[in-house]
């Protein structure tokens, strides 16, 4: 079966658009910062709607901001508006009851989430082919902050409760009871099969609704008489009549809530309707989520803007027409007619998925169910060849619909199996991470447990603390080019996460930069604050352990010293130059490492860096730092101190993919102990006597080349002896007595370190010059100086120089395998 057969006639995307209210003139908030544009506030608030999933609700898919405060809302749209049925087919009473039940269920779901529809009408109730309903466009009132962020009223005249007209100033008080009234009107329309007050003018309609305040008797009865439907009213079963009467109580307090309505005897038969359904096999298209289809649709060229333009919802008018006649000094604008586009546009643009189906037409059904664990040759024979664009750049992979299709299917299956599939997720993440699932994949890579929500809920995020002022001034400066993070909702969430983190990690304090570190997690988990918090909480001990101590200077200094050593290890020329001009990492790299580049790069770059970081360890940022220096290498080598530091104050564009590949490369080529630190988290490293320990910060700052552990040295000797060059600098007598297999002897005393000339070391000079990719391990003993020799090699431009920690003696415990006696050998 091919995917093109998956088409569901009921599955469609739609878009609506409106303008947010524009701030008048140049206005500042109380903090002196410009007011957040209303469209951004809406953008932030509407994110929550995307999480709603309910059989009787159309799913919200996307919120897009356009020019001039335009907001576009993309949502699922399936079935036909109920208004198209009214006046045509008379529904049976049981059908009306079912609709009533579904309406109450859907509204109850919204009301539980504190969303008031306010705009309920027969036009935005969609009837499916099976008779079920789906509410459409139910989030407008909510996302516009109870209608305050737009200039038009969010309501449908004939369906609005009378109190809506009475208290426009109290628009901010969102009462769910207005929706109950609307249900009453809708049910009447179904029962009478008639649109109410259809021939009345606007003003008359409002007067009619307000007149109900004077109506002493049943409003339902009054409406029935007015519409010549008293007979129907009279013969109506008591239970449904009762429901409508209760909906149309003039005092909102007397109207039951949706939840109370659902308790009604009458609805019992519908409640278990799901169980009655025969267990049916998932229809093929149901294996995808709407969000996935929407993303693929976009990747295959689906463009909401274009669709809106095509259908005339977005029109461009000459800018000259939008100029006002007069602008007062205080910013008041005069003589500009109201742009009709700023009124509410009821039109809905439907967007077909044809291009998607065409593009995916050839994909075999098997591809939707990739086998994760076992695959026999027979199955393999029938499987289509894997869609492979592995070697293309990341940006292309992320934009390739078919590739993303396969990746998402695979990852989603793996994520279903988390935590048992953890290793497989890690393995697949090494290839690349599909953007749509990045938040979940990161959480898996960070070992977030399933019960994370509760732990976050109980943390105090409100109590005023001394850190508040700092957090308060940092949040409005944190990645504000991003719509999510600059939205009011984004600020609130970031503040809560930071406060929770500070509250929970009493051993740490809030350092500026923690905000930036949190930003990527919040961005990816905007609708799941708890997960963002837990990702941060898991990230800190793993990658920036102790960086947020009140006194973190020892930790940071050690990290920076390691950075200098890593530069020397891989790029002696650059290291020497920077050393000579006194250009220390302290001057530019603190924000790099404290925030793991989250304060340095824009979000989209951070995501790619961290995609790889999460697969590495706490030394990975050092390699990213090195890769950044490497990219700027030519500039740095010719620049003096001032120019170097200026270069970093205003970091030039860095090719991030190149940088990442370079980081991975050096990360792999660098033995672990080269970047080992005293302050790294023991939880993630196993220490043995053959590892490095007890190196003080002073030592570290003196030594320009890194140390290597005995463990790494013996490992290399055993597994890849050709990749190393061991130089024994003890005296020849000691050397001949016992030495590392394959090592060469350059006695410390035989070399004059006066000038940086590699020839000074004598016969082995050529060998060292050609060492290139080999790791040069210097082995000495307690009575040899372990600083001068590596420094000399470094000055000579020899790369990959390191010193065996503990000297020759530490190797004696592993004698049989790596040590030989010269006498014995000859």
């Amino acid at each position: 079966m091919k995917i093109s057969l998956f088409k569901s006639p009921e599955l469609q995307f739609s878009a609506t658009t409106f303008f947010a209210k524009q701030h008048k003139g140049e206005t500042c908030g109380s903090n002196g910062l410009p007011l957040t544009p209303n469209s951004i506030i809406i953008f932030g608030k509407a994110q929550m709607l995307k999480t709603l999933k309910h059989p009787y609700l159309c799913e919200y898919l996307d919120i897009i901001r356009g020019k001039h405060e335009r907001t576009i809302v993309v949502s699922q749209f399936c079935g036909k508006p109920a208004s198209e049925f009214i006046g045509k087919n008379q529904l049976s009473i049981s059908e009306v009851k079912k609709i009533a039940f579904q309406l109450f269920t859907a509204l109850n779901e919204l009301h539980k989430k504190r969303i008031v529809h306010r705009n309920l009408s027969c036009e935005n109730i969609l009837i499916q082919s099976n008779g079920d309903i789906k509410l459409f466009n139910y989030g407008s009132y909510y996302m516009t902050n109870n209608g305050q962020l737009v200039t038009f009223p969010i309501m449908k005249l004939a369906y609005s409760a009378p109190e809506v007209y009475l208290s426009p100033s109290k628009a901010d008080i969102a009462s769910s009871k207005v929706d109950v009234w609307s249900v009453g009107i809708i049910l009447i329309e179904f029962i009478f099969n008639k649109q109410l007050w259809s021939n009345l003018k606007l003003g008359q309609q409002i007067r009619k609704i307000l007149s109900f305040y004077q109506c002493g008797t049943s409003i339902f009865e009054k409406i029935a008489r007015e519409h010549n439907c008293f007979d129907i009213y009279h013969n109506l079963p008591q239970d449904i009549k009762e429901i409508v009467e209760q909906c149309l109580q003039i005092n909102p307090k007397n109207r039951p809530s949706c939840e109370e309505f659902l308790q009604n005897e009458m609805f019992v038969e519908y409640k278990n309707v799901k169980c009655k359904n025969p267990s049916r096999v998932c229809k093929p298209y149901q294996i995808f989520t709407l969000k996935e289809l929407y993303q693929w649709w976009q990747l295959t060229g689906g463009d909401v803007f274009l669709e809106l333009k095509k259908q005339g919802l977005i029109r461009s008018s000459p800018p000259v027409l939008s100029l006002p006649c007069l602008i007062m000094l205080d910013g008041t604008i005069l003589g500009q007619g109201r742009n009709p586009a700023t009124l509410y546009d009821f039109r809905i643009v439907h967007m077909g998925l044809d291009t998607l189906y065409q593009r995916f037409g050839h994909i075999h059904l098997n591809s939707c169910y990739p086998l994760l664990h076992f695959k026999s040759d027979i199955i393999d024979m029938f499987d289509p060849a894997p869609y492979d664009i592995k070697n293309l750049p990341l940006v292309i992979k992320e934009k390739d619909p078919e590739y993303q299709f396969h990746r998402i299917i695979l990852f989603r299956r793996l994520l279903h199996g988390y935590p048992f599939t953890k290793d497989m997720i890690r393995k697949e993440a090494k290839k690349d991470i599909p953007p749509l699932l990045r938040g979940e994949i990161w959480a898996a890579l960070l070992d977030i447990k399933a019960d994370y929500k509760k732990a976050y809920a109980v943390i105090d995020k409100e109590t005023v603390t001394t850190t508040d002022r700092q957090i308060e001034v940092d949040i409005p400066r944190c990645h504000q080019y991003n719509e999510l993070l600059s939205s009011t909702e984004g600020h609130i969430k970031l503040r809560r996460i930071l406060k929770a983190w500070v509250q929970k990690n009493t051993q740490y304090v809030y350092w500026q930069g923690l905000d930036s570190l949190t930003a990527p997690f919040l961005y990816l988990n905007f609708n799941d604050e708890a997960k963002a918090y837990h990702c941060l909480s898991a990230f800190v001990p793993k990658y920036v352990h102790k960086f947020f101590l009140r006194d973190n200077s020892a930790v940071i200094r050690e990290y920076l010293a390691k950075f200098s050593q890593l530069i020397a290890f891989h790029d002696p020329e650059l290291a020497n130059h920077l050393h000579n001009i006194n250009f220390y990492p302290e001057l530019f790299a603190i924000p790099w490492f404290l925030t793991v580049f989250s304060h340095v790069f824009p979000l989209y770059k951070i995501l790619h860096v961290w995609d790889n970081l999460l697969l590495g360890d706490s030394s990975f940022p050092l390699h990213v730092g090195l890769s950044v220096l490497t990219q700027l290498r030519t500039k740095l080598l010719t620049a003096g101190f001032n120019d170097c530091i200026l270069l970093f104050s205003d970091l030039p564009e860095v090719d991030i993919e190149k940088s990442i590949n370079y980081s991975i490369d050096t990360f792999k080529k660098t033995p672990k102990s080269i970047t080992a630190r005293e302050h790294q988290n023991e939880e993630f490293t196993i220490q043995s006597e053959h590892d490095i320990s007890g190196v003080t910060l002073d030592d570290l700052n003196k030594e320009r080349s890194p140390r290597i552990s005995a463990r790494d040295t013996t490992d290399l000797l055993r597994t890849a002896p050709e990749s190393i060059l061991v130089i024994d600098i003890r005296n020849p007598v000691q050397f001949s007595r016992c030495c590392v297999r394959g090592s060469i002897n350059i006695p410390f005393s035989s070399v004059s370190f006066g000038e940086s000339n590699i020839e000074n070391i004598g016969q082995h000079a050529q060998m060292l010059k050609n060492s290139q990719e080999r790791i040069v391990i210097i082995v000495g003993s307690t009575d040899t100086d372990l600083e001068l020799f590596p420094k000399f090699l470094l000055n000579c431009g020899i790369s990959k120089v390191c010193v065996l920690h503990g000297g020759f003696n530490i190797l004696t415990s592993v004698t049989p395998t790596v040590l030989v006696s010269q006498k014995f050998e000859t």
Partner: protein
Amino acid sequence: MANRSGAAQRPNGTQGKICQFKLVLLGESAVGKSSLVLRFVKGQFHEYQESTIGAAFLTQTVCLDDTTVKFEIWDTAGQERYHSLAPMYYRGAQAAIVVYDITNQDTFGRAKTWVKELQRQASPTIVIALAGNKQDLANKRMVEFEEAQTYADENGLLFMETSAKTALNVNDIFLAIAKKLPKYDQNQGQSGQGQGRRLAEGDQGAKTPGNCCK
């Protein structure tokens, strides 16, 4: 880095003295230190200027009569916790601008502590200027001009209210500092006195005449 400077360069390149000064900005976070520097050096203003971690470095050259003054500006992090880094930046500085936010009394208190620290720890000849920033928000003022002026007079500080947003007094405060700094020609192998340790010998090339004020 482009040098934007109001003063004209003398014809035929016969410039007068060239002086180089290390200047440090100190003050509570979010008072506008980075914004002041950005306005002075690049003539720009960003509403959402991101916070400074560690420190940032920028240079700018101004011409004063017959002297070319090159500022090496260290813009420091404002958060109290970064305090331990501050000496690294103000050590050897010939000038400092201590910034506060006129809409926030606490930042003025913090500015006073900075002044005290500089008087105690920094070079005794350091020129200190006090900048009351965000003057554009004068209607939300919490620190009176007179109060700050009195304080500045008592402590021998230069004082101006500035606005990085409207550029009010931004160049002026730097120029006022330049005027007050003792000027001696640095072309002829200037001694290390007062210069930050960051000024390496390899950098001499940048100081030759004609290289400034492009």
